[in-house]
């Protein structure tokens, strides 16, 4: 087989749009061929990444979560010792409902009380039987509870559970009760267990599926990525969280609580072997691309306030310790 001359990228479907925008612009403005960007999920991408070094392994893994220690070990065992971690920005996670429906102003506690399997009522742990949002909090609209949340395969689910449900658990004061009743370990679990009676619907597909589900069940509220919402503002109405409306600015400033960092990982051993690899990495995090006015931000990426550090690290080929 002849040597390959294009960069190969694999991994997260959340990072995919940003990676393709960067890849496309990269080839338009350089003589390198367009990197091939696969999507198959963060985990699958990292797994391929850690398969080893060489021509028939990928160069870059996109991930919507930081690489885990166990994965780094696996990488090392396969000879992928030097890995550059590059954070490209943040993905905001928003709650949105049908454009024609009610407006919502949520707090994490609302979500906990609406979706948790067990809630605390009058200091006692009881099964969650709420059916309407206004039973949760009187200010919320009189509307059936129906939430489309990411399925357990999605990294977004982890963020949702930790930054919304678990936070809401604490905020509602249920965490303490759980701790008292169930002990530390079980309490964390109880905080994050969602009800299974059909009020909370897992979505294993992607945001387009969530959007379609809202289209067929108008009283549903879905969890979306900020960029997805921004491309569909004519169909979706976004909800505020603790009074903050999600936007690239409020997320970058940290006012809006629900977001997660996005990364890509570069196999250092491939730099110098695969034409254009380093150039691509640098291009990806350059101000023109990943900066607050670049195309990635236009598309909905929350630009990293510390982008300059990242740029330097890439230029220095700094690897993870």
């Amino acid at each position: 087989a002849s040597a390959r001359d294009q960069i190969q990228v694999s991994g997260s479907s959340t990072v995919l749009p940003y990676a393709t925008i960067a890849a496309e612009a990269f080839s338009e403005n350089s003589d390198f061929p367009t990197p091939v960007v696969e999507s198959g999920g963060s985990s699958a991408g990292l797994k391929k990444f850690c398969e080893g070094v060489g021509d028939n392994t990928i160069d870059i893994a996109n991930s919507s979560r930081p690489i885990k220690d166990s994965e780094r070990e696996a990488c090392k065992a396969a000879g992928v010792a030097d890995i550059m971690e590059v954070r490209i920005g943040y993905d905001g996670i928003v709650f949105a409902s049908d454009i024609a429906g009610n407006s919502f102003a949520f707090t994490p506690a609302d979500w906990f009380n609406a979706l948790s399997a067990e809630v605390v009522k009058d200091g006692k742990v009881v099964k969650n039987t709420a059916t309407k949002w206004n039973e949760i909090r009187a200010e919320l609209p009189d509307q059936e509870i129906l939430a489309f949340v990411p399925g357990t395969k999605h990294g977004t689910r982890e963020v949702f559970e930790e930054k919304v449900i678990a936070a809401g658990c604490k905020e509602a004061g249920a965490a303490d009760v759980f701790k008292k009743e169930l002990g530390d370990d079980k309490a964390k679990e109880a905080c994050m267990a969602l009800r299974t009676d059909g009020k909370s619907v897992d979505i294993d597909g992607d945001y387009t599926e969530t959007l379609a589900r809202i289209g067929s069940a108008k009283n549903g509220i879905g969890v979306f990525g900020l960029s997805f919402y921004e491309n569909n503002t004519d169909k979706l109405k976004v909800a505020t969280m603790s009074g903050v409306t999600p936007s690239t600015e409020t997320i970058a400033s940290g006012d809006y609580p629900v977001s997660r960092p996005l990364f890509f990982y570069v196999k250092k051993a491939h730099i110098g072997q695969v034409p254009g690899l380093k150039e691509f990495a640098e291009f990806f995090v350059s101000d023109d691309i990943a900066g607050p006015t670049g195309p990635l931000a236009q598309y909905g990426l929350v630009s990293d306030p510390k982008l300059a550090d990242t740029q330097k690290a890439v230029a220095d080929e700094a690897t993870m310790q």
Partner: protein
Amino acid sequence: MPAIWIALIILALAVVGYVLGVKRALSLAGGDSRRLHSRTTYYGWNVALFAAVPALLVLVLWLIAQPVMLERAMSGAIPEDMLSEGANRSLIIADVRNTANALSAAEQKGLLSAAELADPAGNADAIKAKLTDAGIRFASGATPQIFAAAEHYSASQSTGRKVITVLALLAAVAGLAFATMRIHPEFRARNVVETFIKGLLIACSSIAILTTVGIVLSMLFETGHFFQAYPWTDFFFGTTWSPKFGGGSQLGILPLIWGTLYISVIALAVSVPVGLFAAIYMSEYASSRVRSVVKPAIEMLAGIPTIVYGLFALITVGPMLRDYFAQPLGLGSSGSSVMTAGLVMGIMLIPFVSSLSDDIINAVPQSLRDGALGLGSTQSETVRKVVLPAALPGIVGAILLAASRAIGETMIVVMGAGAAAKMNLNPFEAMTTITVKIVSQLTGDTDFRAPETLVAFALGLTLFVITLALNIVALYVVRKYREQYE
């Protein structure tokens, strides 16, 4: 000489061999082909096969072995200090190979001076510059050592080529000579050729076995890892499926098995009657004009990407079932349900049942129909009592194929039935299948070393065993009820 040329020469020799074989056989038989054991073409094929097959085998073996041998040869040429990091070895070798390719490309274009060609390693920088100018891309890391190794690589490569050229051609000529000499009028050329074809057929059948072995092997290892991290009793007997990111997942397969069976049964309940009746209508009632239009039209259903069905389930069928059946009947208000996925999947599976069955039904001899009609059966009686039983094995095969597709489908289930693993009798509840979970755990975000991801392999293997059991039962049933005509 590139491999493709060698192959072409071998094929040319085979053609020569064919002609020689025919000629020799004829001349030995005194020009009367009737005195030969086999037809003359078989003598030709016999020689052609002997000329081509061993030589091509040699060539293929070489193509597989050459990179390994070259790599070994290169190891000597690359200084030890570069190879000390064993992990990067393959990269360096790739680099050497790229450089060698770039060099030979440059040489062909006449870019390099004689001096540079004589000592590429010494002139590494100059060559690099020239290559970059000429737009020949190669990795930027090429050092003089690499150039030296590249040169060595090219040299051994060309030696290897020469050797294989000679070897392969020798094999071809030897085979040709041997086969030609063997010819005599009583020589059973046809048997030789047919034995060869039979060998080929056996090789093809063994691919199925190899695939199975490959599938089992590619999953067994990771399944082992999974069961080290997760107790098998919980997996096989657990009734809750809820993977978690932070550990503490419950990965019981039972709800998934239940969902798989439930959805498949509904899908078959739709596709088997519709498909079978369609097949019967096409082969027994419809005019050949109608049939020639309807059959390929129905086959289109098998070619529509499943995502279209998924969207159909999600946008049209799901809400419809919810609004007109589930809610009025008080069976819940879920937009996605086993029923939705089953119905839509059933539509997709219609052609699997209908087209295959139609062919089989059509192959039942007309004399059987005549027999039944002659006794005063109606056409439907003929079909039900005579034709269908005679076509049973084929029809069961078609149904099995449809069932297999139902079990293996993801997109329709995800969009139609949802992603929640539940064990419930209500067909208007959301449920999910093993296959869906295999896909989502494999393409999800969990740590790829964690049981939440590895469970996909265990699921795959378990499903494999389950379907195997179902297939054994089916084989037994078919054997029992089969009616062999004539």
